[in-house]
């Protein structure tokens, strides 16, 4: 039985992963904020609730795959725009003070909702959607329209709409005094008179004249007092039509379909995520893909990936990087010049693991990822103004908690751990932490200026790169043994301060 576009199970899992700090470290809070900007529907409920099984992830991924079909996309976009769930309109309708407006508002709302549902069914049927979720929704809609109650509602909508639409009246406006009267015919408007008298001039003037100085008349949003009073006057002029309207209101105010209302709240998640990624992809030529599940013993990888938060913020000039971690490898040790893209790389990998668990497309190509049940981050905190000892203590406390909580399903991202202490100490502590985490079967990334950590077993050394012969960062992070000094040398060369340069200058 179809219940939801986001969760295959009858009841959505109720665990909500904590870890605000992790989201902040990975800049996912920025990403989510940007996605939330694209819809009025609150998405936290979904964005902060990673899925726990591969089946759940596949259920959503299939919908994203369908969304690439423009027909499916158009269908869901139109539905999201035109359908309003019961809980969203019922309060608004019943709070309306004037009876005529209240009745009419409900009529219009239900008419639009039914039209939106029909459009959705038609468009989905015409599309090639294959996801279990959308096929389920299609089946649900078929059953829905077959219900006798729904058929009765729709014929009532048509009848009343026709009766009201057939009313013809004249508004005579004298300052603030308005008369509403029945009318049968209407004479030529002022516009025709102007057109007649100035015919040669209008014929001569180009049709694409600039009318931007005239505000296009506003269409009414919400209900003004004037409209309410006109409706009341109309009820006096045409009492029969309004009696039918009242009967309709009484019958249908509380009609509701909970599944469709749930779907209406879920569609914005898909649309907002897709719009966000599609914009980045199209504007800056960045790839996105749906990862396959990497089972135990398989290599995990993402080609040409990037930091989504950085891409959303900067857009241009995003450098992509490859990620790979074989089954027998446990930690990536990333070193290299600062401002070279080390942290960005680590963030990218963390984001990918989290986004994969939301069932949404991730940055990159050809991705195969494992389902990490726990994602830990240890980044330098902003409160570095605190005393050094205090800072180190806090660092140690936090990493201890992480090590303690980690297991074989954990992925731990550590960024410049113990930077507030001496290199020798930091190295010793770093080794210790890595060894402990390895023993628990956890995997992860360790960003550091300490080359020596790369000599541990089961670790992979990587370096952020500098363009050869210069100090320009390429922001590429690749697997390579740390060279310890390539960057420093090129910087010295630029200033002519390498030992060879200084020796040469000394000679006559």
């Amino acid at each position, binding site marked *: 039985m179809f219940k939801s576009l986001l969760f295959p199970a009858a009841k959505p899992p109720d665990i909500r992963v904590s870890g605000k700090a992790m989201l902040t470290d990975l800049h996912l809070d920025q990403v989510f904020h940007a996605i939330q900007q694209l819809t009025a529907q609150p998405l936290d409920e979904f964005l902060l609730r990673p899925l726990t099984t591969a089946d759940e992830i596949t259920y959503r991924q299939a919908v994203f795959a369908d969304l690439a079909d423009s027909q499916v996309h158009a269908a869901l976009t139109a539905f999201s725009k035109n359908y309003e769930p019961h809980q969203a309109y019922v309060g608004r309708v019943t709070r309306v003070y004037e009876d005529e407006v209240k009745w*009419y*508002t409900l009529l*219009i709302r239900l008419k639009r909702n039914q039209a939106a549902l029909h459009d959705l069914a038609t468009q989905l049927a015409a599309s090639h959607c294959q996801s279990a979720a959308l096929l389920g929704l299609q089946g649900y809609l078929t059953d829905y329209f077959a219900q006798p109650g729904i058929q009765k509602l729709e014929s009532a909508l048509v009848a009343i709409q026709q009766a*009201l*639409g057939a*009313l013809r*009246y*004249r*508004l*005579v*406006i*004298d*300052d*603030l*005094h*308005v*008369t*509403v*009267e*029945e*009318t049968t015919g*209407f*004479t*030529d*408007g*002022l*516009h*025709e*008179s*102007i057109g007649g*008298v*100035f015919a*040669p*001039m*209008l014929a*001569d*003037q180009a049709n694409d*004249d600039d*009318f931007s*100085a*005239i*505000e*296009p*008349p*506003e*269409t*009414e*949003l919400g*209900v*003004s*007092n*004037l*409209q309410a*009073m*006109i409706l*009341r*006057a109309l009820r*006096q*002029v*045409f009492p029969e039509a309004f009696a039918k309207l009242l009967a309709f209101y009484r019958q249908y105010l509380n009609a509701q379909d909970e599944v469709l209302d749930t779907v209406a709240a879920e569609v914005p998640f898909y649309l907002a995520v897709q719009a966000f990624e599609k914009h980045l992809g199209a504007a800056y030529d960045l790839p996105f893909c749906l990862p396959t599940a990497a089972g135990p013993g398989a290599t995990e990888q993402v080609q040409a990936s990037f930091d989504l938060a950085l891409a959303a913020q900067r857009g241009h000039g995003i450098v992509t990087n490859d990620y790979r971690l074989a089954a027998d490898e446990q930690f990536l040790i990333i070193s290299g010049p600062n401002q070279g893209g080390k942290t960005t790389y680590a963030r990218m990998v963390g984001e990918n693991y989290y986004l994969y668990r939301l069932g949404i497309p991730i940055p990159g190509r050809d991705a195969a990822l494992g389902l990490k049940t726990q994602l830990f981050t240890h980044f330098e905190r902003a409160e570095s103004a605190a005393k050094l000892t205090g800072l180190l203590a806090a660092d140690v406390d936090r990493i201890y908690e992480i090590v303690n909580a980690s297991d074989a399903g954990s992925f731990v991202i550590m960024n410049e751990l113990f930077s507030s202490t001496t290199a020798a100490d930091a190295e010793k502590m770093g080794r210790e932490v890595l060894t402990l985490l390895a023993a628990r079967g956890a995997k992860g990334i360790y960003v550091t200026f300490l080359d020596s950590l790369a000599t541990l077993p089961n670790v992979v050394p990587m370096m952020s790169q500098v363009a050869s012969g210069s100090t320009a960062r390429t922001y590429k992070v690749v697997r390579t043994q740390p060279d310890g000094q390539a960057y420093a040398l090129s910087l010295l060369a630029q200033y002519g301060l390498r030992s060879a340069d200084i020796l040469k200058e000394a000679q006559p």
Partner: protein
Amino acid sequence: MNVGLLGERLDWTGQWTPTEAQRAVFADLEMQPILEAALDGQRDLAQVVTRSWFEPVTDAATLVYRQQMAAYATQHLDYFRQVHQLAKDTGAEVRRNNWLVGTQAAAYSLSSTCSLCARYLKGVAAIRALPLPPAPWPAGLTAFHQTLTTQFGDGRLAKMQSLLADLSDNRVYAVEGRLSASLGSDVGEREVQHVHRLLDRVSEQLHLGKRKASFTLSARDDNGTKALVRVENQASYASAKAMMQIYHALAHFFAELEAETGWLIAVGQLSAALTGPQVFPTAAPKFTATGLTNAVLQLQPDVSTVIGNALDLTPGHGLIITGANQGGKTTFLRAVGQAVLMGEAGMPVCAEKMTLPPFDQVLTHFKREEDAQVVSEKLDEELKRMRGLVDQLTPQSLVLMNESFSSTNEHEGSQINSEITGGLLGRGCTVVSVSHQFEYTQLLQQEALPVRFLRAERAEDGSRSFKLMAGAPLPTSYGQDIFDRRFGALRKKHR
């Protein structure tokens, strides 16, 4: 609505600003004094005169049309002064009363444009009431009066004025309504019989017996009164658009009329200020002239005789002018440029005879004296400027070069100069180049480029006749003697 005095569908209204290259041409050719003479103190004509110099008429028939109009107007300036004044005053009064700033609501726009158009129609009536100048008329004047008749003849002007008068009091109005999907009333256009309040009362009685209901909004009901305003705006929108169209047509017509008559007045004034022979050039494939003089010299009353020069230049060819310093080379170069700007605008030029091919633009590359930069920067600046000209080159360009690339040594300058001149000619441009560089002329000859040479003449005694004669360049320039004259005495003193 076409004014038609100076050509079909001419449009001199609207903002026009010269490009950087055009500003350079204006300065290099010394157009300022010529402009001043044409304006005779009427600063507001400056734009239209300048613009006409940079929007050349390259079509022979249109050129004749404009020349004939200019010649006729010069004889009957009074009529055009009167029309110009009426157009200008009307335009100014409309601008003073025009509160159409930014965007307005339709109802406000409708009433504003109605009153502005009424003012324009008053101007039309005044122009139509002027006594007409004598026949035979040039085609331009006929076209102008044709427009007036088509638009406002046969009693149309009176009908227009009466409709606008009706609309000036439009407080009560009626519209057709029907319920819209958004709960409001979709309203139609204003009903025209409700334009008059008197008529309104009559129609009120006619509608008696129908089912009706009335209400009055409270003046303090902000929400309701705003909605009422929206209804009025909806009902007025189509009419407001039509009136806006009419307003634009009239505004454009008056602005264009002011510009075109202003231009005719300026041409008449300039013609009167020039002392030497003037002629309207004839469109022809070759650029030829006799007695060509620099207009700026013709504006100086104390200069008794200005030497006229002959010109014979095929488009796509080059003319290289060399010879004595202060021999009249630059003066001549400017005279060529001035004649093209003025002649292609439809003005008379300072010559005895002239034929003019359709150059679509004049570009100038003159040596700049003003800033004392280091040599390399000066050369950069020159090359950059030339780059800018080449960017906008067309095959019908006339390029006037004055001592180009003299900011470096002669050898290097000659190489650059001949390289560029060859390129310009290769593109089909016509080039007139003044240069001191002997090597430059040698290189041009070696390349067998289609160039001819003129030389500033110099008598045996060293005096200058300011006459340019055909002739190959001589290896030495005559700067030395100018120097000698200046420095001779000083030099002797030190000997």
